[in-house]
């Protein structure tokens, strides 16, 4: 499977329109709009406190927006619990890894398959034919995902015993197991060494193509963002400064100003 760039007329997978949230008097995010066409790899950057994580929390249902709409394939996500959003096709990873620490690598992924099953609780307790079949399908799919992310040889290990990089990849495998349309990655490169970061870029592109995904990522590491994303949105103080290709964004004086003259490194360099 390749990643055909969707024609401009195709409806966006994710459509965020004039999203705002205020905590008391503090306007954390103001008028955030974003349209993500299918298979887009989009980056969300900004200095500390710019509101990136707030946008993420709005998307995943931790916060309720004051105004604005979020539509995933024309279905509004507003008012849905996080689990319902996952069912609608929105998956995420966490900035500070949140695996199921005491469970095995395989079980971590299998849990995320659960939402796509249809057998009932009674079916589970009786071990109905459907529950057995879906159980086999879960196992098959989980192994396939672990294989894609290179974790199959560790499937029996307890998740908390994995090295850091493997834990990050396991989180991505788990998110993929929910069979999402859009994947939100919250600082996937955090804590990785330069070599791992290179691998991460190839891997994210690989899973995007293989699983036909649309990906939105928050990242501090400019090397990763610039080398990976097709378009980038820059936030500062909750306001969208600019949106464009990595080259456009790097040249934009407002962005340079927002980062207070901090040099924006080009692809390949580490932060």
């Amino acid at each position, binding site marked *: 499977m390749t990643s055909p760039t969707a024609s401009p007329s195709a409806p966006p997978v994710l459509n965020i329109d004039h999203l705002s949230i205020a905590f008391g008097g503090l306007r954390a995010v103001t008028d955030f709009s974003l349209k993500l066409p299918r298979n887009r790899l989009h980056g969300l950057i900004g200095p500390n406190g710019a509101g990136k994580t707030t946008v993420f929390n709005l998307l995943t249902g931790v916060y309720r927006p004051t105004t604005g709409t979020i539509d995933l394939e024309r279905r509004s996500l507003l008012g849905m619990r996080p689990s319902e959003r996952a069912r609608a096709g929105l998956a995420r990873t966490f900035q500070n890894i949140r695996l*199921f620490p005491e469970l095995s690598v395989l079980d971590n992924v299998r849990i995320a398959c659960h939402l796509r099953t249809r057998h009932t609780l009674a079916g589970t*307790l009786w071990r109905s034919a459907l529950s057995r079949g879906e159980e086999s399908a879960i196992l098959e799919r989980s192994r396939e995902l672990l294989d894609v992310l290179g974790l199959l040889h560790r499937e029996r290990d307890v998740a908390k015993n994995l090295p850091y990089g493997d834990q990050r990849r396991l989180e991505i495998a788990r998110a993929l197991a929910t069979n999402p349309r859009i994947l939100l990655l919250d600082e996937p490169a955090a804590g990785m060494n330069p070599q791992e970061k290179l691998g991460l870029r190839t891997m994210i592109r690989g899973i995007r193509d293989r699983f036909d995904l649309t990906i939105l990522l928050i990242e501090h590491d400019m090397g990763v963002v610039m080398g990976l994303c097709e378009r980038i949105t820059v936030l500062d103080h909750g306001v969208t400064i600019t949106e464009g290709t990595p080259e456009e964004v790097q040249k934009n004086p407002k962005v340079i100003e927002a980062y207070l003259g901090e040099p924006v490194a080009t692809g390949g360099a580490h932060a």
Partner: protein
Amino acid sequence: MAEQDRHDGLHARGLALRPSFGSALLRSAWPLLACIAFAVLLQLGIRPYLEVFHAKMLLDIGTSIILAVSLTMVNGFTGQFSIGHAAFMAVGAYVSAAIVYYGSFRLFGNADLHGGLLSGMIDHAEGTPILRWADLLFVASLLTGGILAAACGYVVGLPSLRLRGDYLAIVTLGFGEIVRVLIQSQTEEVLWDPEKIAATPMYLWPKYTGGALGFSGLPFYSSLFWAALFAALTMLVAIRLKYSSTGRAFLAIREDEIAAEAMGVPTTKYKVRAFVIAAFFAGIAGGIFAHTTGVQLNPGELGFMKSFDILIMVVLGGLGSISGAALAAAILTILPEMLRTPHTVWPWGLVAGAVLAIALAPFAQKRWKPALTIALVLGGWELMRWFAGATVVNLGVVRFEKAVIDLSSYRMVIYALALILIMIVRPEGLLGVREIWELRPVRSRKAVRR
């Protein structure tokens, strides 16, 4: 590949991988049949050869296993801290007792035991059938008690399971006390006049449950069969839950609630589910408890002390371990009874301890550790027995008399000390989160990995 047809991909693949109806039926049904066969064997094959005291202890173990394993589903699987389990037991006990007691009067004119060979702990008359209609009344009462307890679990769980940790503990504790006080504050005595009972409509039966005086005169239907059957069923349900997609979702809630929700597990709904299933089995255990020989059903016995007893079994066994909870339930039911008459049971304690030490040694990281622990326990045990035993000690040349301590009066102190000791030696519980059948000898486990 499955990833093309997005949302139905897994379900469609599941349909394709579905085993044939016949093989699924066979594999689903045989554990149930095994449970029934085991329970029948215990009642008909083994009970007649047991002393009454030992048979009664086995029955108590069965009830404890139902309670501990059902609480494991809440505290161990979903990680919610519920400490009001005895309340569900009380609901089941009183509902079941009222149905059996007043139902017996309506049907047979008295509240004697009318069951077949599978009910009761007595030797039945020659020619008694295995099951009688009265047994059906008993089972129906157990199930009704379980269902009403489950309904209470739903009503309590739905609002309170949005709370976490300490807050949930307080709510469940409060609920437990409410149930106890409600039963205790009934003022009507238990009816015993058949004519009066016949005149009392069914919906008024719960009124005449004796209040603080207790519900006396119940027929003793509980037997090794019923206790073993429901204990085995509870364990079967728990095991099938644990090793299933739904059960893994329960475990995910325990591990990380936010991540579980983000991965599509509706956490509140699943917590309520676990709570309701656990309450159902607690209600059944209550029904069995109410009809046990020698028990005079009293609300005071079903207060928070009972809840803590159950909780201790779960924690001691290892939060999340079904076999651990069952093992702890057995140990903690036997221990206080063993301490009651320490000098009569010691050789078996010694034998059991030695067998346990040999069996456990290959599973430990440091092999000498469990052996040493058990040797220490046995040494302490022997010392205790020695203190409590003969008044005259003859050490060859020296011969002296020593004070006799009546151990049975200190048994609850020893029981508590034993608990403290176990929690110091193994804070994660006897089995941790693992199951007995998941234990592997240390050496071969290393060999598998490398």
